[in-house]
C-alpha cells in the first residue's frame, strides 16, 4: 500500500513539474524582443507578407491562446514546425536524440568503469601513496567541470598527440548503411566494426570529458562505503576463512557497499545529460545539445521549446525511475 502511495505521489509531482517546465519555457520564450518572422523574410517584404507569415505560425494570437494551441498539439505529439529548418520539431528532435543518448550512455559507462576501478584500487591499496594519489586526482576531477576537461582533452589527444577525432560524430566521407539514428548500436549489430571504430574515435573524447567529474563522484562515494563495509564483522570473518584481500573486497564488501552509489549514479546521470549541451558544441558533435544552441542563436522558438521540453522529460523521467527503483529495492518501503 505504502509503495503504491509513494508511486502515485511521485508520478503526480513529476507531472506537475513537467507542466511547470512547459509553462515557464513557453512564457519565457514569448518575451523575446527580436521578431523571428522579420528574420525569415527578405529585406523587401511588405507588411502584408509579415502579417501572413505571422498568422501561419499562429504568432498573431494572444499568448494564453498560443499556449493552449501549442499545449494541445504537444499532447497529440505535434510540437509544431521548426522556423529555420522547415521540418516538424518532433522528427528533428527524435532524429538527434539517439546521438545524444549514445554519447551519454557511453560516458556513463566510462564513468562507472573509471570510478569503480579507482574505488577498488584505493580500497585494496589503502593507506599507501597510491590511495593518496587517487584522492588528489579525484579532488581535481571534481573541481573542474566537463567543459574545461573537454578543452584539455582536445589539446592533449587531439593536437599534442592526435590519436582521436575532435569534431563531428563520424567521418563525413564514409558511406553509412544505417536505417536508424543509433549509429553506434547499429554498427555493432551489423558487424561493421570499421564504422564502430570510427564512431568511437569521435565519441571517446567528448564522452571522457563528460565522464571525468562523474567518475570522481562515483569513486569517492564507493570508496567511502567500501571503507565502512570493510570494518564489519562478516568481512573480518571472510578474511579469517582465508579469502585473499582482493577477493574479500570484490565478493564480500562490494555487493553490500554498492547500493548508495547506484542511487547517486541515477541522479548524477541527469547532470551528465545536461552537460552534453556544451560538450556537443565543443566537439561539433551532431546531437540535441548542439541543435539547441543553434536553435537559440537562430531564435527558432518551436525548436527551442521542443528540445527543452524533451530534456525536461528525460531529466524528470530518470529521477522518477531512480526513486521507484530505490523504493522497490528498499525493504522498509516495500513492506511498509
Amino acid at each position, binding site marked *: 500500500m505504502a509503495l503504491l502511495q509513494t508511486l502515485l505521489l511521485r508520478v503526480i*509531482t513529476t507531472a*506537475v*513539474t*513537467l507542466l*511547470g*517546465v512547459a509553462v*515557464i*519555457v513557453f512564457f*519565457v*520564450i514569448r*518575451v*523575446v*524582443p*527580436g521578431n523571428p518572422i522579420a528574420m525569415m523574410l527578405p529585406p523587401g517584404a511588405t507588411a502584408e507578407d509579415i502579417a501572413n507569415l505571422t498568422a501561419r505560425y499562429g504568432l498573431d494570437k494572444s499568448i494564453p491562446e498560443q499556449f493552449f494551441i501549442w499545449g494541445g498539439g504537444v499532447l497529440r505529439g505535434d510540437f509544431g514546425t521548426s522556423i529555420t529548418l522547415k521540418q516538424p520539431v518532433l522528427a528533428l528532435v527524435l532524429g538527434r536524440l539517439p546521438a545524444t543518448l549514445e554519447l551519454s550512455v557511453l560516458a556513463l559507462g566510462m564513468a562507472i568503469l573509471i570510478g569503480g576501478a579507482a574505488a577498488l584500487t584505493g580500497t585494496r591499496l589503502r*593507506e599507501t601513496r597510491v590511495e593518496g594519489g587517487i584522492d588528489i586526482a579525484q*579532488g*581535481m576531477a*571534481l*573541481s*573542474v*567541470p566537463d*567543459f*574545461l576537461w573537454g*578543452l*584539455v582533452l*582536445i*589539446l592533449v589527444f*587531439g*593536437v599534442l598527440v592526435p590519436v582521436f577525432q575532435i569534431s563531428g560524430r563520424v567521418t563525413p566521407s564514409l558511406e553509412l548503411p544505417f536505417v536508424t539514428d543509433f549509429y553506434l548500436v547499429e554498427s555493432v549489430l551489423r558487424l561493421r566494426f570499421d564504422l564502430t571504430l570510427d564512431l568511437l574515435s569521435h565519441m571517446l573524447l567528448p564522452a571522457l570529458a563528460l565522464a571525468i567529474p562523474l567518475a570522481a563522484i562515483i569513486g569517492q562515494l564507493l570508496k567511502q562505503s567500501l571503507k565502512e563495509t570493510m570494518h564489519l564483522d562478516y568481512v573480518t570473518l571472510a578474511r579469517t576463512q582465508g579469502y585473499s584481500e582482493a577477493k574479500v573486497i570484490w565478493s564480500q564488501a562490494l555487493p553490500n557497499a554498492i547500493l548508495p552509489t547506484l542511487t547517486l549514479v541515477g541522479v548524477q546521470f541527469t547532470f551528465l*545529460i*545536461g*552537460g552534453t*549541451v*556544451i560538450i556537443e*558544441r*565543443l566537439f561539433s558533435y551532431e546531437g540535441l*545539445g548542439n541543435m*539547441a*544552441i543553434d536553435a*537559440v*542563436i537562430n*531564435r527558432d522558438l518551436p525548436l*527551442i521549446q521542443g*528540445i*527543452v521540453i524533451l*530534456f*525536461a522529460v528525460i*531529466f*524528470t523521467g530518470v*529521477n522518477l525511475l531512480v526513486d521507484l527503483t530505490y523504493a522497490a529495492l528498499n525493504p522498509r518501503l516495500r513492506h511498509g
Partner: protein
Amino acid sequence: MAEGRFQVRRRAGLRLWLSAAWLILLVMVALFAPYIASKDPLEQDLFAGRLPPFWVHGADASFLLGTDSLGRDVLSRIIFGTRIALGVAVVSASFTCVIGAALGLLAGFYRGWVDVLVSRFIDIWMAFPPVLFSILLIAVIGPGLFSIILAIVVIDWTRFARVIRAEAMAQGAMDYVASARVAGRGRLGILLREILPNVLPIIVVLLTLEMGIAVIVEAILSFVNLSISTDDPTWGGMISEGRTSIHQAWWVLVFPLITLFLTVLSFSQLGEGLKDRFDPVLR
C-alpha cells in the same frame, strides 16, 4: 592515525593558501590591469597576426604570449579579461547568495506554504539542464554582461536555497531555538539572530563555490558567442577563437585555458578547504 589526520590537515592548508594566493593575484591584476598590460587589448595589428609566444621562433618579444588572428595581444586580453571574469563572479554570486539563502531560510524555518512554493520551484528548476537554461535565458534577454549576471542568479539560486533550507530546518529543531522561543524572542528575531549566524559558514562556502561556477558560466556563454561582443576581451571568447584556430595558433587557446582552469580550480579548492575548516568533525 593522529599523524595521518595531521597530514590531511596540512595538505588541506596548503591547497587553501595556494588557491587564495592565485585569487588574490587575479584581484590585483584586475584592479591594476591598465598598468600591467603592455598593450591595448582591443588594438588590432593585421601585420602582426598569429605571432607565437616569445620563446618560439618567429615571435615578436613585445607580444609575450603571442597574438590572435587579428594581431591582438593575448596576454593583454587575458589581463583585461580578468576584470570581466571576476566582476561577473562577484556580482552574480552575491545576488544569487542573498536571494537563494533568503528563500532557503524562509522555507526551512517558517515551513507551511512558503516551503511548499519554494520546494516546488526547486523541483521545476532541477528539471532544466543548467547550460541549456542559461543559453535560453540569454537568447530571451539578449546578450551582454547584465544578462549573464541575471541568468546566473535566476538559475543558481536553487543551489543556495536547497542546502540552506535543509540546514535551517535542522537548526530550527534544535534546543537553542526552542529556548529562544521560550525566552520570548519573535520568529524573525530567532531567524536572524540565532539561525542565520549558525548557517553563515555554509553560506560562505557556497558563495565561494558559486563564484567558480559563475566564472565558468560566463566562459561558456562567451564561448557560444552569447556574452558581450567578440571584441571585448573575455577568456571564453578567446578560447572560442582558439578552438577554431587550434592547428594554426595553439597559444590563443592554451593561455586563456590555463588561466580559466586555475581560477575555477582555486575557487573550488578554496570552497572545499573552507568547508573542511568549518566542519566540526574534522576540527
